[in-house]
């Protein structure tokens, strides 16, 4: 299991590389690798920009029916999100972005869990399974 700091744009690149290696090593197709790396890029940038930095973790998991998967954790101790449904709405953005980060990332993965409270940071956990 890799734990990676997210403190700069370069860290976001390192997270992408680490996710790419884990996805390729665990039998994800090229399209699924690309989807997972893109989702990781969105989430890592959220951690950096909205969470004020944090940590990413890359974990290899196995499903009940023996499929391999890659599980990613993004955690920050930033201001948190007051309205989770709103944050997951396409086009909604607090910053100058396109508002597709969270909602788009959710569409690119198989499992998506967002936990956050105002003042208590944000955690996003996603899984992509091999087919």
């Amino acid at each position: 299991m890799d734990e990676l700091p997210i403190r700069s744009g370069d860290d976001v690149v390192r997270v992408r590389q680490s996710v790419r290696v884990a996805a390729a090593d665990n039998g994800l197709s090229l399209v699924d690798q690309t989807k997972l790396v893109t989702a990781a890029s969105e989430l890592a940038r959220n951690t950096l920009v909205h969470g004020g930095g944090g940590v990413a973790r890359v974990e290899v998991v196995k499903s009940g029916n023996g499929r391999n998967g890659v599980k990613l954790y993004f955690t920050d101790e930033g201001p948190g999100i007051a309205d989770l449904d709103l944050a997951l709405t396409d086009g909604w953005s607090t910053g100058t972005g396109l508002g597709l980060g969270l909602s788009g990332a959710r569409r690119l993965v198989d499992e998506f869990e967002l936990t956050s409270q105002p003042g208590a940071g944000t955690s996003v956990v996603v899984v992509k399974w091999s087919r």
Partner: protein
Amino acid sequence: MRLQEDLADELSATGARGVIIDITGVEIVDSFIGRMLTTIGSVSRLFDAETVIVGMRPAVAITLTELGLSLNGVRTAMNAEKGLEILNGRS
């Protein structure tokens, strides 16, 4: 951003009517990179130049669609040759 400044300088100096961006070597396009590409399109348009993005990998195209990114204001083409055809008004 450096690329955008260089592009604006170059468009202003040469009066070029088209910009081709080859992303053959780009492994992912997230919303951050997507926004950079559309901004390049907007800057180019201010200099009366059209932007064509070429060489997008199939996996990137599929992912972009699912992400919900539409790259407004820029055109896309299979490769640089097709991109030039668009800019020359032949297709």
